[in-house]
């Protein structure tokens, strides 16, 4: 990368740095959580579930797969995409990526609401790892929205 390229990038304000840092952190935690469940799914192991007792009920329920694809794998791909997009934004400062992130976080947030509803009212068991995912996707949603709002303000 040349100096002239660097000079084209607008520097990030401290608040942006914080928000991107938090988004990176939560997308990484979400990825860790979903990847653990995906690995356990493909290795056929039982889930180490010490806080809530309902992990295995939830993870082996018929809602744990969509068209044969484990929801955990979809979650891992979601968090991975978000993490890579954030890295790409840090690297290029391309506003389109930010626009994509601000919209993409809606998917995770609404999916989490749906899965929380399934756990509480349909399966009637709570999975600790799914609660972690619900928290991370909610945080990503909040910080994603905040980041795009601040960016819009700055651009005005």
């Amino acid at each position: 990368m040349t100096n002239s390229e660097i000079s084209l990038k607008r520097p990030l304000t401290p608040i942006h740095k914080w928000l991107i840092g938090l988004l990176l952190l939560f997308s990484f935690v979400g990825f860790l959580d979903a990847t653990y469940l995906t690995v356990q799914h493909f290795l056929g192991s039982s889930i180490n579930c010490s806080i809530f007792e309902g992990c295995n009920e939830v993870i082996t329920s018929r809602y744990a797969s969509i068209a044969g694809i484990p929801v955990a794998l979809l979650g891992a791909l979601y968090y991975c995409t978000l993490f890579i997009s954030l890295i790409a934004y840090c690297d290029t400062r391309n506003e389109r990526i930010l626009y994509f992130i601000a919209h993409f976080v809606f998917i995770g947030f609404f999916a989490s609401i749906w899965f929380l509803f399934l756990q509480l009212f349909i399966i009637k068991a709570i999975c600790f790892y799914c609660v972690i995912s619900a928290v991370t996707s909610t945080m990503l949603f909040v910080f994603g929205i905040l980041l795009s709002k601040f960016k819009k303000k700055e651009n005005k």
Partner: protein
Amino acid sequence: MLWLSASLLLGGVVFGLIKFSNNESNQTALLINTISSSDSDWVKGAKDAQVVLVEYSDFQCPACAFYFSLLKQLDQEFSNKIQFIYRHFPLKQIHVNAESAAWAAEAAGRQGKFWEMHDMIFENQATWSSQKNTEDIFLSYAQSLGLNSNQFKIDFDSNEVKEKVTNDYAGGIESEVNATPTFFLNGQKIKNPSNYDEFRNIIKEAIDSNS
């Protein structure tokens, strides 16, 4: 540099988790010694069935309690076509009450109510798992099943009952059981099905191919 760090981080997570999960299931095997195998099994279902499902299980393991509900459904659906065998594999290093629960089931079995106690122990797993004095809890289960309390206590403390559990455990080690529950279908270790339909299909296939 940024991309390289991110790729290494994500790749490291996947690799680390796969390695960790493999180690975790091997650890249970390392905790145990090898002794001789067991010969007196608890059996239910069809006596002359061509399909035999053996389960190595731990009463305190949450996954075993989950599979207990699946096995109950399988029993209802295939009770005249399949034989179920329960063998103890208490992982006492991580489940402090698993062994006493196995003794309670064996003691109830001495009075002809192994399966009733087995069901009761699994159904109430959340109640007794974290308790310190489980003997009184299991005694209350024995009483509710109409068992002779004194005889139950004698059997619970007996060497025969303890030996039976130890022998089951040793048999599991010989069969390379390293996690609970582990299922053997007609002598073949199977990958734990992830839901009832998957389990049902495995059993149905075995019944069809043996009929």
